[in-house]
């Protein structure tokens, strides 16, 4: 029941290799089936995202023995030379494989620390493998644990709480002023890449209305079409600012596009309803002194980058708390694993003892000729009772052992002493 993990990720493999070793859902299903059909693994799960491809399994033999087989399979399945794969793949076994998965679910292994998407991807990969019967009791328990770890890290730490991009920071700040954006209007000046990122983020956060204004009408319409926005003619500030709550500017211009006076007039017309402005232009699109206008909140690219940097540091400071949650669940999983092992061990020991008892009694009782069948059965029952009593005591003590390391050591010692040379369950 040893767990094996063979995989590669953004740290170990360049994009060209990751592309070649990624799995579609259908490929994942097929690979899982083949790994089990070939007798390499008893249970399998393939996790494939843009940053990683990993195969989790329960080894039929020992984990270390089956890992090379899984590696060759991956090389063959994706037609990638072993030399290329060899330097990119990592192998983890048991405790290390469990820790790797739990850290990954919590966003600790992601390119962007604490990102949330990975938990959904783990959930989806598990659901898919479970539906196709690729997982069994061990991987079910392992992945349920991973989902719990991910959820706890999200709710109990701030690892994923703060925005990590300029666009996300700006939109989150708008939410600090307006709360939900669903009944708000955002005006975007410019239709470049940065504007597009912000528009996507605003849409993602459910902004009510989106207006786009650009010098090139064509670009504005293209952006508006993609994100369900409305185009406003360039320069019609009065109309646009009257209805907008969030203003995003990213226009290439040598002079500020929005002078303070325009904003002052707009604020008068709006009855001083709050206006949040993200000035992402360089040079700035909004006159610097506009930040003094009552109820106008202006953030430029430096302000937002500073916030992102602060948030990155805040996330990093949460890593120890997240790691302690991971360790707690690794311990829980290993304890469960040891208990399951123990049940198997006791079952094997009992079978072994019965077998020995059978041959031993047959030889001894045959030499005592005068015993009736009833007496022979009575002796067998008595011996069974004694043996059961001898087994139960240590088994209960082992089950009750609180220290995980000792429990695992004892289970292994018992197996080595009494069942060495025999197949593992």
């Amino acid at each position, binding site marked *: 029941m040893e767990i094996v993990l063979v995989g590669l990720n953004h740290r170990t493999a360049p994009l060209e290799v990751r592309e070649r070793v990624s799995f579609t859902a259908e490929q994942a299903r097929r690979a899982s089936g083949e790994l089990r059909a070939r007798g390499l693994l008893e249970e399998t799960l393939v996790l494939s995202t843009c940053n990683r491809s990993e195969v989790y399994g329960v080894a039929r033999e020992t984990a270390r023995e089956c890992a090379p087989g899984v590696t060759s399979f991956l090389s063959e399945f994706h037609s990638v030379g072993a030399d290329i794969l060899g330097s990119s793949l990592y192998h983890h076994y048991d405790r290390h494989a469990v820790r790797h998965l739990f850290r990954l679910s919590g966003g600790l292994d992601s390119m962007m620390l604490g990102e949330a998407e990975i938990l959904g991807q783990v959930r989806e990969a598990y659901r898919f493998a479970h539906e196709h019967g690729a997982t069994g009791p061990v991987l079910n328990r392992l992945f349920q644990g991973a989902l719990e770890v991910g959820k706890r890290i999200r*709710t109990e730490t701030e690892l994923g709480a703060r925005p990590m991009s300029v666009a996300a920071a700006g939109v989150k700040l708008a939410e600090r*002023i307006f709360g939900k954006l669903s009944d708000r209007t955002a005006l975007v000046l410019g239709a470049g890449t940065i504007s597009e990122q912000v528009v996507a983020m605003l849409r993602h956060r459910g902004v009510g209305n989106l207006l786009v204004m650009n010098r090139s009408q064509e670009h504005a319409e293209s952006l508006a079409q993609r994100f369900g926005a409305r185009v406003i003619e360039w320069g019609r500030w009065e109309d646009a600012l009257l209805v907008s709550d969030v203003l995003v500017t990213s226009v290439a211009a040598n002079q500020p596009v929005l002078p303070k006076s325009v904003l002052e007039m707009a604020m008068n017309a709006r009855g001083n309803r709050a206006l949040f402005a993200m000035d992402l232009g360089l040079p700035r699109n909004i006159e610097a002194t506009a930040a003094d206008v009552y109820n106008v909140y202006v953030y430029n690219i430096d302000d937002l980058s500073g916030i992102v940097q*602060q948030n990155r540091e805040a996330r990093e400071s949460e890593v120890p708390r997240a790691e302690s949650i991971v360790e707690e669940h690794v311990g829980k999983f290993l304890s469960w694993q040891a208990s399951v092992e123990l049940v198997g061990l006791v079952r094997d020991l009992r079978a072994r003892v019965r077998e020995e008892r059978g041959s031993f009694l047959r030889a001894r009782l045959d030499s005592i000729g005068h015993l009736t069948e009833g007496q022979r059965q009575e002796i067998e029952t008595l011996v069974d009772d004694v043996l059961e009593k001898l087994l139960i005591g240590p088994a209960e003590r082992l089950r009750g052992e609180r220290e995980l390391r000792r429990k695992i050591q004892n289970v292994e010692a018992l197996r080595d002493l009494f069942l060495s040379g025999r197949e593992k369950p």
Partner: protein
Amino acid sequence: MPHLFLFLTILAYSLSLASYVRLLYSGRETAGRIATALLALGLITHYFALLERARGLHTVPYHDLYGSMSLFGWLLALTYLTLEVYLRQRSVGAFVLPFVLGFFLAAHLAPADRLSPTPAHGPVFAFHVTLSILAYAAFALSFVVSLIFLVQNRFLRNRKMAGLVWRLPSLELLERMSRASVLIGLISIAIGTVLGFIWVDRLTGQYWYYDPKYVITLLVLLLYAMYWLLARTTAWRGARASRLCIFNFVVVVLSFTVVNLYLSHSHRYF
């Protein structure tokens, strides 16, 4: 066991406060839920503590200064909890609970006055007092919320992103919370004042005799009505309205202290 409810209330409010603070700093939703549950528990035990105290002194809670303070704390907690549930926002709790706990402790740990039994004032008087204290509790809540608004507004205007910014409610929500609280206060004080005049009429046969307390109460009513209108419809919305709300509460405190102690003929503790 004597003072059982006293200890239970102190325990519930203190733990609730600790949980609200934990929520504010860690963002853990579980801490927030625990804080709300403990506040609700504190409200129940506080009610029984009020009852226990009133029975012990053979009088109504608002017959003396400490009783009025305790009732004020209870109504403040009740108003806050109502708004918390209504607006689904818990991060203000850490700022309100110290006041609730403070009023409760000051009222119940202070030596009780030796009181003569309460004259039978009747239900009109009881509603007049209770509604007035409820109004002041609601105004106190709007004061706390307005202070938080100004702090959050300052952070956002100055682009200083302390960790607290991400934990506190949005400015919009703080405004709504303050307006809702003031509305509760306005309705309560309006009804409470009318009941007060009715009670005076029954007692003396005339609706009005000059008492500075009447003047300041009407001023308070007017100022809060002004805030309520200005905060949502005009150029005053935002920080200016919050400052007005804070100023209004200063007038309330004046009404409680200077007017009650030195000028009023008929109001001592509320």
